[in-house]
């Protein structure tokens, strides 16, 4: 095989070349281009030249109350949905980690929210959340009396965030469920049998056997979901455009107000924030 090594190496480069070109051209270059744009007053007509304005957009953004409001919404949305998807995924995985008839069908059914196109799922939920005849109001107000009157779940900024959070948890917990279930199934039954012989309660077994085994997968799920949900656009915007998370704010600055420079600056800030979170999380929480 030795003689072939040089030829293999050359072939290796050729085969990876399309990938390298595509990813550098359409991911890495745009990221740097975005930084450059954030220093410009970008002309609405892309053929016309831009004007260099230095750090003006960053100064504007960081002193803008709207930005900080949007930042806060993003923090609330991301933290609640990360906790929600992980806990519901964990609970579902623990519930289904046993043998019962129809188990594989039920597992497939639970994955449906995750694979259904966002646009279809959104319309289903919009119907449920309809202020006049929606199921959500009917149950919360008329049946359970949790709330005094019908709420406009989709359009009122105060309540739409709840609708968006519920929708996101519904859509994404199956991913956590599947990853955790796979990990649960890899735990040897001997461990539980031994614990039972030693007289450990179900809770003690969970705490001392199950949880330590799940630490890694849960850690990975939390960081992935945090990154994904900080960047989440369609699942928020299509359900309710009045929940102004940062991606929605960027989108509207760029494509409704045509303030591309400012949108680029917000993107850069969002990225730095997410990067900072990743580094903090990996070092302090996961202790890698």
């Amino acid at each position, binding site marked *: 095989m030795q003689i072939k090594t040089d*030829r293999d190496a050359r072939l290796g480069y050729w085969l990876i070349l399309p990938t*390298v070109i595509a990813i550098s051209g359409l*991911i890495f270059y745009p990221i740097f281009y*975005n930084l450059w744009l954030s220093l410009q007053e970008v002309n609405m007509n892309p053929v016309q030249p831009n004007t260099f304005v230095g750090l003006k957009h960053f100064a504007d953004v960081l002193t803008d109350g709207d930005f900080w409001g949007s930042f806060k919404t993003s923090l609330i949305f991301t933290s609640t949905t990360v906790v929600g998807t992980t806990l519901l995924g964990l609970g579902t995985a623990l519930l289904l980690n046993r043998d019962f008839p129809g188990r594989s069908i*039920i597992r497939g059914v639970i994955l449906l929210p995750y694979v*259904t*196109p966002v646009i279809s799922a959104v319309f289903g939920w919009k119907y449920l959340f309809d202020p006049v005849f929606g199921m959500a109001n009917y149950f919360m107000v008329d049946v359970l009396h949790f709330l005094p009157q019908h709420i406009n779940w989709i359009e009122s900024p105060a309540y739409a965030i709840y609708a968006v959070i519920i929708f996101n948890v*519904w859509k994404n917990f199956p991913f956590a469920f599947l990853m955790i279930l796979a990990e649960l199934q890899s735990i040897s039954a001997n461990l539980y049998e031994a614990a039972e012989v030693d007289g450990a309660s179900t809770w003690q077994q969970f705490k001392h056997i199950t949880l330590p085994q799940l630490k890694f997968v849960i850690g990975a799920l939390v960081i992935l979901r945090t990154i994904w949900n900080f960047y989440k656009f369609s699942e928020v915007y299509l359900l309710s455009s009045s929940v102004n998370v940062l991606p929605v704010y960027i989108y509207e600055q760029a494509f409704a107000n045509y303030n591309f420079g400012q949108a680029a600056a917000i993107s850069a800030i969002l990225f730095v924030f997410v990067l900072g979170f990743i580094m903090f999380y990996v070092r302090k929480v996961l202790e890698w």
Partner: protein
Amino acid sequence: MVKQNTILKNIVFVLLLVLLLGFVLLPFITMLSSSFKPDTEQAVFPPTVLPENPTLEHYKGVLNPEIFPFLMYFKNSLIVAFLSAGIGIVISIFGSYSFARLEYTGRAAIQRGVLLVYMFGGVLLVVPLFQMITKLGLFDTRTSLIITYIVQTLPVSLYMLGNYFRTIPKSIEEAAIIDGCSRLEVIYRIVIPLSAPAIVSVFIYAFMIAWNEYLFASVFINSSSLRTLPIGLNQLFYTQHYIWGRMMAASVLTAIPVIILFLSIERFITSGLTFGGVKE
């Protein structure tokens, strides 16, 4: 005593399972049932679960090009998703073979570079990509979406296929090389046929991502004749076609191909070998 305990446990289990399935399925049930409800039954209070007089009028409306261009949007989505998944799979077969089996300096660095992509969401790219697409004269073309989707799905495809290729015994490939096959022949005579299930799954995964994508499609496309389903349906919601039954029928018809495709590869996707590489 012990027996009573088990019965209680089973009751709790079934109860929780019913609650969970209710939460998961409620939107689907609503969607399906209102797509068959006549207009008069849509806004009834209290809400009804099943249609009293089921009708197919909404499906007929959606599928009638004179009322709503659903079929055109469907075709556009199909073209974009098929081409981006198809081109993407070719690039990633070559790329992941290169990662899995060929040794060269810089391979590890390139692999890490591909992994880095996980840190960039679409929303960070939409502003610069829009500027680039416009400058390249690709605004309002299918090409703009196809190239964007290829790149968005590449890292996952490379990861999944690379994992699969590594499970093929090296000895089979070496035997073929000794018999006089070139590396490229090994790829298309041995690796591709042996990895057919993985390749089909990765193709379907990429197809689904392209089929569902909203952000780039809403920005790169202007002409109504090029719109994909998510854009078309979202606009339907804000026009005079805003009829619940029709919206729901359109949603069902948009979801069905994806759900069928997913069910066909569920076993492979959920085997863990692949799901670990998913990116949103």
